[in-house]
């Protein structure tokens, strides 16, 4: 099965994730016959990311998007499935090999207020990965490289000697990106990198990430709950619901011709900042809430909230199938496009 790109796409993906499953132990229930409980955080998720491209991974809280990102970076245990990076199976890498791999894969965090050590100068923060990986002998030694990285990320030169508190949220996120770039990675997991920022500065950071991709050919796994930002940066979109990938398609397909009823509802829930449009939209307001991920019932996870649920959905779990070229959907009921954004 070719998951990424179009059928004609014969490039080798940079990242190839197959049947990724992550379960966390969640204690046990029952005293006499304890039954082990597991949080089914990510179930049988597959996707690919091409060199220089971005996959937007979208989901609400508890959908497993952060867990997926961390599993790919090998910061979370993987229960089953494989992660292939640059043609190499990294699912079971350990020790020195894993440390070396980490040069190529970096993480940009959500909260620029919590992810930078307040007691370290910007120079020390950005130089740290260079020193740890033996690329620079000392922080001082890394200075020219750090200055270049800061400039590249749109920070003033005098930032070097200052501390994180002296910077605004947007600038702090630039520092986090400069640090992630230090080791010249091929791949960055950006976990909600603009969610904590004010609206007026979000675009500054999104545009920086796009420029870096264009100039350096970096691939991103861009994790978001916000469908409007992700549209601008992604080539493909994966929609997660309660640990399952429900739709996986090129970006325009997802927004203009979504197939999965959850994607359709999600798109219709995002408010549009224009009362003339927003008040006239026909919206699908989902009832109920996401199921408990601890030992969840069989069947489609979305069944409890799905407006077009059928009996079968409550017993069997739908698999991701190619319903249109390059457009994968996990749904028994729907196989043609629902209502996209433009039509509302």
């Amino acid at each position: 099965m070719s998951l990424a790109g179009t059928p004609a796409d014969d490039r080798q993906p940079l990242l190839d994730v197959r049947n990724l499953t992550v379960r966390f132990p969640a204690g046990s229930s029952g005293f006499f016959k304890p039954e082990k409980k597991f949080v089914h955080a990510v179930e049988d998720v597959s996707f690919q990311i091409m060199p220089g491209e971005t996959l937007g991974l979208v989901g609400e809280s508890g959908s497993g998007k952060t867990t997926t990102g961390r599993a790919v970076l090998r910061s979370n245990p993987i229960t089953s499935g494989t992660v292939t990076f640059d043609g190499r199976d990294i699912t079971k890498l350990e020790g020195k090999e894993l440390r070396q791999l980490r040069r190529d894969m970096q993480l940009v965090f959500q909260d620029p207020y919590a992810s930078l050590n307040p007691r370290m100068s910007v120079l020390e923060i950005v130089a740290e990965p260079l020193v740890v990986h033996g690329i620079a002998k000392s922080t001082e030694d890394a200075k020219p490289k750090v200055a270049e990285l800061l400039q590249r990320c749109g920070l003033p030169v005098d930032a070097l000697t200052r501390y994180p508190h002296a910077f605004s949220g947007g600038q702090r996120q630039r520092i986090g990106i400069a640090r992630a770039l230090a080791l010249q990675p091929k791949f960055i997991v950006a976990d909600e990198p603009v969610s904590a920022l004010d609206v007026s500065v979000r675009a500054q950071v999104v545009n920086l990430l796009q420029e870096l991709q264009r100039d350096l050919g970096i691939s991103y796994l861009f994790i978001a709950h916000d469908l409007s930002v992700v549209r601008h940066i992604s080539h493909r979109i994966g929609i997660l619901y309660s640990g399952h990938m429900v739709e996986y398609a090129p970006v325009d397909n997802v927004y203009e011709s979504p197939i999965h009823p959850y994607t359709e509802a999600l798109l219709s829930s995002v408010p549009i900042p224009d009362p003339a449009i927003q008040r006239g939209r026909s919206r699908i307001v989902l009832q109920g809430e996401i199921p408990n991920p601890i030992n969840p019932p069989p069947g489609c996870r979305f069944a409890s909230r799905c407006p077009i649920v059928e009996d079968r959905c409550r017993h069997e779990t739908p698999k991701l199938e190619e319903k249109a070229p390059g457009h994968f959907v996990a749904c028994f009921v729907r196989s043609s496009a629902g209502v996209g954004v433009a039509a509302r």
Partner: protein
Amino acid sequence: MTAETILEVNNLTVDFFTRRGTVHAVRDVSFTMKRGETLGIVGESGSGKSVTAQAILGLTELPGKVTGGDVLWKGQSLLTGPGAAGTIERIRGKEIAMVFQDPMTSLNPVYTVGMQISEVLTRHMELSKKDARARALDLLQMVGISNPVARLDQYPFEMSGGMRQRVLIAAALACEPELLIADEPTTALDVTIQAQILDLIAELQERLHIGVILITHDLGVVAGVCDRVAVMYGGKLVEEAAAAEIYPRPFHPYTEGLLRSTPRLDIVEERLESIPGAPPDLRDILPGCSYAERCPEKTAHCLSNVPVLEQRGEGRRVACWNPRG
């Protein structure tokens, strides 16, 4: 249709006296609300929108202090003058109710939701315990909570975020308030749950004819719910207009910048727009317009003269030396 003015905020000024200096969080903010109106107060972090809401209810937290101006509720002072403290005690929770951002921390974890809603009713409406419980049940039903009888005896931790926010709205509506102040009521919620809560607020507003002040950073949230929008920046109110006017035709360059940098699901742009720079430091107020530093329209005049919020057309006010329009 001319409804009476119920709320008047006059020259409200709130300062926070911190160890690192005085933060001028709200500066000379004035606006009024008529009965049954819906007003959206929009601003980014540090714009003073939440501090304004807290001040209206007399809930300014230390080291903050209202250092100027007043709030009048149906002509009665809530903040200054003799008897203001008593007046606000009587009105808060009864005639003016509020819902805050975080539905987990606003509910007491050791009481059932039934007890928490009943408490409001026994306190303000002097209902008996039995009547209060029956009314609490009605309220849970009204805010769309399924199986309300069982829910009455549950604790907040047994509920999801969306459900807890519904409980808070039920508690806020318990005494049939005339004004509901909702401070970022959906920010902590997922987008599909946000849609449910916004629908609920709009529906209740229409059904009960209550006024709503919706405080948010999200222009999208306001678009579906509010008749009128007030935009705050750097502790000041910079523009106020009808929702139908301000979205297509913002007068203040900040409003315009904010609208442009809000990514839209329905429009594909090559490059997202942003406002250069960052919001001002409210400890160190520079002379002139606080937006001047980031403003594409600034002139030398803007750097040394503070623009006054002036009437510009029907029901529209703008604080800018070079407004659009």
